[in-house]
């Protein structure tokens, strides 16, 4: 492993296309239709013919062969196919795979795409898209998956560091304030700390408003080499660093419930990018539950371990605060299609393009996202930059 720091990937590829469907209720649509719309929007945005796509990266919970279905549906003949699954962080990890593949010359145009109709499926059939595997030595006890894992982490964080339900609620309130500035977000009405505290308990200490949305949505991005990116229509957003790490599959095996693998993944990503937390202008983290934002801001180095609750308070991560976090409204108030990671990438890219309207962070040159997968199991940090950062 020594020497395998991936630093040759820094700035070698760029996101040149982004495609998103509408978010929320798309009751007349299948998951593949949502993927296909997002993919074609991303290719149109990039100005690249779909037949140029030779690297396809996707993933989802319900399918066993997501790449085969997506390639067949889109009429692609990819030479690189990756539908690995490490949870909702997987699309962020596919930035690493795509960058390596493009650098190695085994593909030239990488499409990372996802589509979900999990909200409509739940409403129509009562079935929610979820991972299929059995967690041996845990499932017998009937934990409420997946929130039980996050609830256990929240309870431990509260015990060790005095984090409170009010701190958790601050995360939800900040996300909602950002969502109010995003026309695409699902939940935009005002939200207060008291609203969160008063909402129905789901899994102590997490209430319903500490939990993410369930949404229909599709998202896609297109990556090419930095050389190719310069010839295309959109302002390139370069991948400066990416780090992948895991600590466990099931929550009972997580070594320390208050420190996630984001401490490792971010270290790798910062080293590759040659940057530190102080260089980051905008942060997007996988907020499936409010505790996530607190854990990740600590593990990504934006505050000290144990101080996340205070850090997110008094609007510090909301519009006008010291650190813009989850500027799209996050999984809590914008969109959460079962696996959220690609939405993090899309928001980073749009912020660095400067195209996010009311919620735009002025002069944003460096954006960081942290994808989370499973039960706080896998963490993937990616750092993007504008041309000025190369």
């Amino acid at each position, binding site marked *: 492993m020594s020497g395998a720091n991936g630093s040759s990937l820094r700035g070698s590829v760029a996101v040149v296309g982004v495609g998103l469907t509408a978010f929320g209720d798309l009751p007349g649509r299948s998951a593949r239709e949502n993927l296909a719309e997002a993919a074609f929007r991303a290719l149109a945005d990039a100005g690249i013919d779909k037949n140029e796509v030779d690297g396809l990266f996707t993933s989802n919970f319900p399918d066993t062969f997501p790449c085969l279905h997506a390639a067949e549906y889109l009429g692609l003949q990819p030479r690189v196919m990756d539908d690995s699954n490490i949870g909702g962080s997987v699309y962020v990890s596919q930035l690493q795979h795509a960058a390596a593949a493009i650098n190695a010359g085994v593909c030239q145009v990488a499409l990372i795409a996802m589509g979900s109709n999990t909200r409509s499926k739940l409403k129509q059939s009562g079935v929610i898209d979820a991972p299929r595997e059995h967690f*041996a*030595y845990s499932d017998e*006890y*009937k*934990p*409420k998956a997946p929130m039980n894992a996050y609830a*256990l982490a929240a309870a431990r964080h509260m015990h060790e560091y005095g984090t409170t339900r009010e701190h958790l609620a601050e995360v939800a309130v900040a996300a909602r304030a950002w969502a109010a500035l995003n026309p695409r977000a699902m939940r935009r009405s005002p939200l207060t700390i008291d609203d969160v505290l008063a909402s129905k308990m789901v*899994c102590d200490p997490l209430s319903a408003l500490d939990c993410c949305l369930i949404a229909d949505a599709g998202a896609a991005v297109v990556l090419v080499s930095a050389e190719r990116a310069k010839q295309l229509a959109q302002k390139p957003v370069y991948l400066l660093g990416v780090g992948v790490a895991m600590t466990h599959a099931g929550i*009972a095996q997580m070594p320390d419930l208050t420190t996630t693998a984001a401490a490792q993944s971010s270290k790798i990503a910062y080293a590759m990018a040659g940057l530190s937390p102080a260089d980051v202008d905008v942060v997007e983290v996988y907020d499936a539950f409010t505790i996530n934002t607190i854990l990740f801001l600590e593990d990504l180095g934006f505050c000290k371990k144990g101080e996340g609750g205070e850090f997110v308070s008094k609007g510090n991560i909301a519009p006008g605060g010291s650190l813009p976090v989850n500027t799209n409204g996050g999984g809590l108030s914008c969109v959460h299609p079962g696996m959220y990671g690609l939405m993090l990438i899309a928001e980073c890219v749009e912020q660095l393009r400067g195209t996010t309207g009311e919620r735009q962070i002025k002069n944003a040159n460096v954006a960081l996202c942290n994808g989370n997968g499973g039960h706080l199991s896998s963490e993937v940090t990616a750092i993007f930059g504008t041309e000025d950062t190369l």
Partner: protein
Amino acid sequence: MIPSSIETFPELGPDKVFADYLGKGEFKLQLCADCERHIFYPRIVCPHCGSQNLAWVEASGRGVVYSTSVPRGMPEGEYNISLIDLAEGPRMMSRVVGIEAEKVVIGMAVMAFIGEIDGVRVVLFKPAEGVQ
């Protein structure tokens, strides 16, 4: 450790052995003879050092609640989901019973016993008053 003794993999896997012990009312852990660490859940190789030299030992049953939560709205009513740090070192998921679900707290000393959930034998815990 570089694997060297591939002939020693047991025909009867440790999942089955553990379940058979549980069926007889015994809660067993594995102990690695090479790195001397206890292992749970049962493995065919030591997750710490890679050794295949693992022995079954009786668990003390002593543990401390590492974290705890009550899932709400479940069909069978309220119960407690806890992570228990065993005295031997490993951590496991379980339920602490014999106490109201939400009265289980982090740091509480607990003692294992073998019980059932839906007819399946499992290791459960109860508060261990006075047990350190």
